[in-house]
């Protein structure tokens, strides 16, 4: 009962300074020309570098204590955005603010601290743990380096971190391959939490796990949120998971945010046609022998995205303006923003 109270979705006022804020953040990846292409260009052939706009002018606010779900299909830039937020990938344009201050303008010590307070948990617990390190070192190395723990207290500290993530400290001399997938994900969680962060980016953190294990890890996330007063950016393609634990949901399509709203609003009154077709495509356990709703077409290549609104070739409601003009994210109601030209027509 008290559990339910503390798990209840929270509401936030717009006035608060967000813990993390992105303003006009973009990230481009370009493929460098190889020797043959450079030679061809010197000879006067028109060869251009291929540029992918993985993240395209994104604004995002995450307030303290909030869980924001970031949803999108493959190639929409959600993982790239997550890495920028976590501070492990620099943006090409725009600014990242930590508690109201531009991260780039922070002096050395404060910048390091701001980075330490933002940690990331990855999708693949097989690839994100060093197979040659023992669990104790995986979990304890960073706090030792950053002076959060003295060498004398190292063992106790590691034990406490492991216990908190639901791991038996007796196994700390073991290597990652001696653990199951769910336990490995717990090691990743213990490692992220060992440096006492305030903000966690979870990138598809339960996608690789079996259903029954997934529930255990999700419950662990919620318990840790309460115990340590954490703020999450929860990246997932699984709308069921996102609906369950987010306060607010942000939907991305091909590098742009197309809609954001409180969770209930997204799932009850989605505004953007993409969000609606996404929700229709999700198989639900309540559905019986029914025709699956279908969005036409494929996700376009981010190398060569459609003009105007990126979704227009697949959109059942597209009209001329969608092909030429990029729609802006606009308020449709309090806290609910959507990037669709149809909202202007109404």
């Amino acid at each position, binding site marked *: 009962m008290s559990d339910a109270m503390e798990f209840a979705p929270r509401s936030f006022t717009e006035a608060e300074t967000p813990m993390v804020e992105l303003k006009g953040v973009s990230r481009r990846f370009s493929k460098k020309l190889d020797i043959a292409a450079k030679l061809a260009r010197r000879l006067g052939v028109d060869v251009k570098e291929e540029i992918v706009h993985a993240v395209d002018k994104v604004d995002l606010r995450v307030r303290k204590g909030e869980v924001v779900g970031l949803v999108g*299909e493959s190639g929409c830039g959600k993982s790239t955005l997550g890495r920028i937020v976590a501070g492990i990938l620099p943006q090409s344009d725009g600014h990242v603010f930590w508690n109201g201050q531009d991260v780039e303008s922070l002096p050395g010590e404060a910048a390091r601290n701001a980075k330490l307070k933002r940690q990331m948990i990855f999708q693949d617990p097989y690839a994100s743990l060093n197979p040659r390190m023992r669990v104790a070192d995986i979990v304890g190395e960073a706090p030792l380096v950053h002076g959060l723990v003295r060498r004398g207290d190292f063992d106790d500290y590691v034990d406490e971190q492991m216990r908190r993530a639901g791991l038996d400290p007796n196994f700390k001399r073991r290597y990652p391959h001696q653990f199951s997938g769910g336990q490995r994900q717990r090691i990743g969680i213990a490692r992220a939490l060992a440096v006492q962060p305030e903000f966690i980016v979870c990138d598809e953190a339960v996608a690789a796990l079996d259903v029954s294990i997934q*529930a255990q890890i999700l419950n662990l996330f919620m318990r840790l949120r309460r115990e340590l007063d954490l703020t999450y950016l929860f990246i997932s393609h699984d709308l069921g998971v996102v609906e369950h634990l987010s306060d607010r949901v942000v939907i991305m399509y091909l590098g742009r945010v197309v809609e954001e709203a409180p969770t209930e609003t997204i799932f009850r009154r989605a505004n953007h046609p993409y969000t609606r077709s996404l929700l229709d495509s*999700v*198989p639900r356990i309540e559905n019986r022998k029914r025709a699956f*709703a279908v969005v036409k077409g494929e996700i376009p290549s981010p190398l060569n995205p459609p003009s105007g609104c990126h979704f227009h070739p697949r959109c059942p409601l597209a009209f001329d303006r969608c092909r030429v003009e990029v729609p802006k994210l606009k308020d449709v109601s309090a806290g609910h923003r959507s990037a669709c030209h149809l909202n202007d027509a109404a």
Partner: protein
Amino acid sequence: MADAPTPAAPQGAPTLEVRNLRTHFFTRAGVVKAVDDVSFTVGRGKVLGLVGESGSGKSVTGFSVMGLVDPPGRVVSGQILFKGQDLAKLSDEEMRKLRGNRIAMIFQDPMMTLNPVLRVDTQMIETVLAHEKVPEEEARRRARDALGMVGIPSPEERLKSYPHQFSGGMRQRVAIAIALLHRPDLIVADEPTTALDVTIQGQILAEVQKLAATTGTSLIWITHDLSVVAGLADDIAVMYAGKIVEHGDVGEVLDKPLHPYTHGLIGSVPSRNRRGEPLRQIPGMTPSLLSLAPGCAFRARCPRAAADCVEMPELHPWRPDRLARCHHPHLENVEQVA
């Protein structure tokens, strides 16, 4: 009534009937009973959802039906009756004639089906000609029709592409088209949409549903995702540690699960829980098949386990067409309406 049916081809026989199938792997560490006494039937044009977590034996069951179990694995005993014919007794050569022809398989990774260095038309025509003597033009026409059937736009041009020129969803469509080339009676699909995005998964599921309804092909759909099976399958069989623990009509099983494992699995799906509340979870993890204790394999994780669970329960028909392998099933789920 008057004419006795010929005994060789009984009318209304199911497309596939698996009886007491056991597939074991003889590893250096010991015998792994990946599939241990599994029985089920799939009727004509019906879809069976075979559900379980990793290591439950659901994929090995599918591979056993296809005759694709490699050493150290072996089908140890049991019958796999495909239209009355026991596949387990067939020679490799006889099995090869059926595979890709009357029974086909779709894999999670379409690149397991597709050869990356051959054009799609080469591979598809080869498949047609492997089982039937037809002119190449006819084979090409069939390949084109199959691509059209699975919703690939401009199939004529796409035939000339290489697999890497397709997106993941399109590749899976090509793999499905190849499976459909000979209008098989049975398709075994092993997690075919797991690696795909939701909107693409939705498209593929819609195509498959349409195909099953129009061609009369039977399907075994192997997946860990209960939500996919809910919308697609007629029957569902839930596997745990090499055995079927619950079997029945999809709606019945998902609405009124009998086995505590099925109950727990459904309970841990986020949409079945109140938003923001802790998810109901199954404690512990799947046991290693190398060191299974005698008795019910689920008992260590089961909230209803009692002393008698050290005896392995039978797959008992607790209600008509409702099988569950449990001494203490959730009978209260089916008892409200008398």
